[in-house]
């Protein structure tokens, strides 16, 4: 059947589109043309992702594409299963909206460098989600890392450059540790392909060491608590769309890899202590992130700290996934965490866009000086509030569904203390969201003149993202059974989908 042949082609296309977009945006001279073409490519990317998702949900089977026709161990493969298809869909939708936002956010001078780096970052992201080869992941991680650093440094201010540098150093260190882990795996098992590794890997000290190295490298990039110091500075000093994509996608990509390695590839090497350790770190991250967010003086800093906290939530997956000792990974928790990623990405991106509007209107984003914000930028406040709702996990938002599923798995697996942590996290999040809202609603501002409410279109994009965050809380059926699509072991026969 026709579509059967063409669909696998979508995978390489998924990586090629951003690359081509990057090349074109480098070569193209005028800003308007560059922006137009970029929007076209963004729409194309969404269509491809949609095609992939539809294919998966109808045929319920994962796709594997062998680049260069050489087959798994020798050549490199691209694979897509339920989880990665969902992540691709999320990132392409988000990229579309953020591209629309940044089409008029950047001055001509900046946009020359912004668009190519933006597309290279997206290429890196797509490569990570599609990668099935350990070393290929390293290169993709590196593309994503470096282009993220370059985008953060776009700001040009000293703070931006310093935080970009710190982010670069951390990124480099993380990637090298990851590479060391891959080297050990190659030494022990002789193959770089993830699927082969998952069949061959067993519980011996070398695998355990390489898993911990890989995890350390990825934790550095995901900014879990002790290794999070670089995130607040980087995310808060970057331009709005960049910090949105950083918080929403880049950090999640390394978490996606962690999930792949812990639950898919090297799952025999994982053990109870490691899982609970990650869980505890996550819990501490939630509490600490919220407290720091409460004390933050600048809005973007507050949002960045809230990212640190929300990442803590993600790591609660590890202790809850293995239902009390049995190696069987309970699918409900993974679905919950994926939902969390979905909801958090949309909500956090919306928040950063709102913060971007506030910064461009006021010139600063010092929270205490934002009194009467509700008069001047009503749309920004609405976006911030709705996104806040999803972060806290109040119904009817996606965040609520995620929290519900996590709570349910926590209680059904009898580990109720994680549930307490989650509820505490929700309340703390409510604290700092409430703080910002109460300042925004404070209308007895000394300047009686009512500001002309800024009517720019950019506020609209943040608002749509926030609404998306709420609406993905409704029809969860579709998302959850998409996640069921997984690779059956053992090795699929080569040559595309049978």
């Amino acid at each position, binding site marked *: 059947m026709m579509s059967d042949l063409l669909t696998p082609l979508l995978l390489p296309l998924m990586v090629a589109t951003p690359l081509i977009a990057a090349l074109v945006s480098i070569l193209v001279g005028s800003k308007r043309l560059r922006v137009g073409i970029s929007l076209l490519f963004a729409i194309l990317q969404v269509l491809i992702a949609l095609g992939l998702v539809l294919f998966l949900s109808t045929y319920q089977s994962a796709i594997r594409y062998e680049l260069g026709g050489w087959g798994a161990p020798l050549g490199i493969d691209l694979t897509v299963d339920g989880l990665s298809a969902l992540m691709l869909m999320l990132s392409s939708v988000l990229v579309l909206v953020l591209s629309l936002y940044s089409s008029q956010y950047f001055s001509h001078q900046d946009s020359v460098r912004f668009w190519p780096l933006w597309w290279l970052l997206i290429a890196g992201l797509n490569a990570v989600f599609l990668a099935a080869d350990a070393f290929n992941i390293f290169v993709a991680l590196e593309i994503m890392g470096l282009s993220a650093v370059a985008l953060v440094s776009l700001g040009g201010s000293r703070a931006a*450059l310093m935080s970009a540098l710190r982010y670069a*150093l951390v*990124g480099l260190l993380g990637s*090298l540790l990851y590479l060391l882990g891959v080297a050990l795996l*190659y*030494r022990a098992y002789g193959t*770089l392909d993830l699927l082969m590794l998952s069949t061959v890997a067993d519980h011996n000290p070398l695998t355990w060491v390489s898993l911990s190295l890989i995890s350390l490298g990825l934790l550095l990039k995901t900014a879990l608590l002790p290794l999070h110091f670089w995130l607040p500075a980087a995310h808060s000093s970057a331009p709005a769309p960049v910090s949105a994509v950083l918080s929403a996608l880049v950090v999640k990509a390394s978490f996606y890899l962690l999930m792949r390695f812990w639950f898919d590839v090297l799952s025999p090497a994982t053990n109870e202590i490691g899982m609970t350790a990650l869980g505890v770190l996550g819990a501490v991250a939630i509490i600490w992130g919220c407290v720091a967010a409460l004390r933050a003086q600048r809005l973007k*800093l507050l949002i960045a700290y809230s990212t640190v906290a929300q990442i803590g939530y993600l790591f609660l997956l590890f202790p809850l996934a293995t239902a009390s000792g049995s190696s069987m990974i309970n699918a409900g928790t993974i679905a919950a965490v994926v939902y969390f990623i979905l909801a958090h990405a949309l909500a956090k991106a919306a928040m950063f866009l709102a913060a971007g509007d506030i910064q461009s209107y006021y010139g600063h984003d010092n929270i205490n000086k934002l009194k009467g914000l509700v008069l001047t930028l009503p749309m920004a406040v609405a976006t911030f509030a709705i996104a806040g709702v999803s972060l806290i996990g109040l119904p009817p938002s996606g965040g609520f569904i995620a929290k519900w599923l996590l709570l349910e798995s926590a209680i059904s697996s009898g580990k109720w203390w994680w549930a307490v942590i989650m509820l505490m996290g929700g309340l703390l999040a409510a604290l700092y969201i409430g703080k910002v809202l109460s300042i925004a609603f404070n209308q007895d501002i000394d300047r009686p003149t009512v500001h002309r409410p800024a009517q720019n279109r950019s506020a609209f994009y943040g608002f749509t993202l926030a609404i998306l965050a709420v609406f993905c809380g409704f029809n969860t059926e579709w998302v959850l059974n998409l996640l069921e699509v997984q690779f059956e072991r053992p090795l699929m026969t080569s040559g595309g989908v049978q």
Partner: protein
Amino acid sequence: MTHDLLFSITGVVLIGIGLFGSVASTHIIKKLIAINIMGLGIFMIFLSTARHGMITDPIPHAVVLTGIVVAIAGTSLCLWLALKIHLLGEDTTEEVNANDV
């Protein structure tokens, strides 16, 4: 057989030195150099797996080659940023924000 083991041990030692250097020193350039040393250590371990008696495995070589290029790119980006920071301001040890814990 002991040849590649020797290489791997030196690789590990290099990694140790690189790690210590990158963590202990606060000067950017020192840190960068340390990270490069660590990279080389990793490449050494990777290459040490290539020798199997008569057959030499080309995969580690290709991988290391790509690794080197990526490391260069990373380092040059860091240098570029360090240079720009150096040009921008005198205040070399500026705390990014007061309450960064």
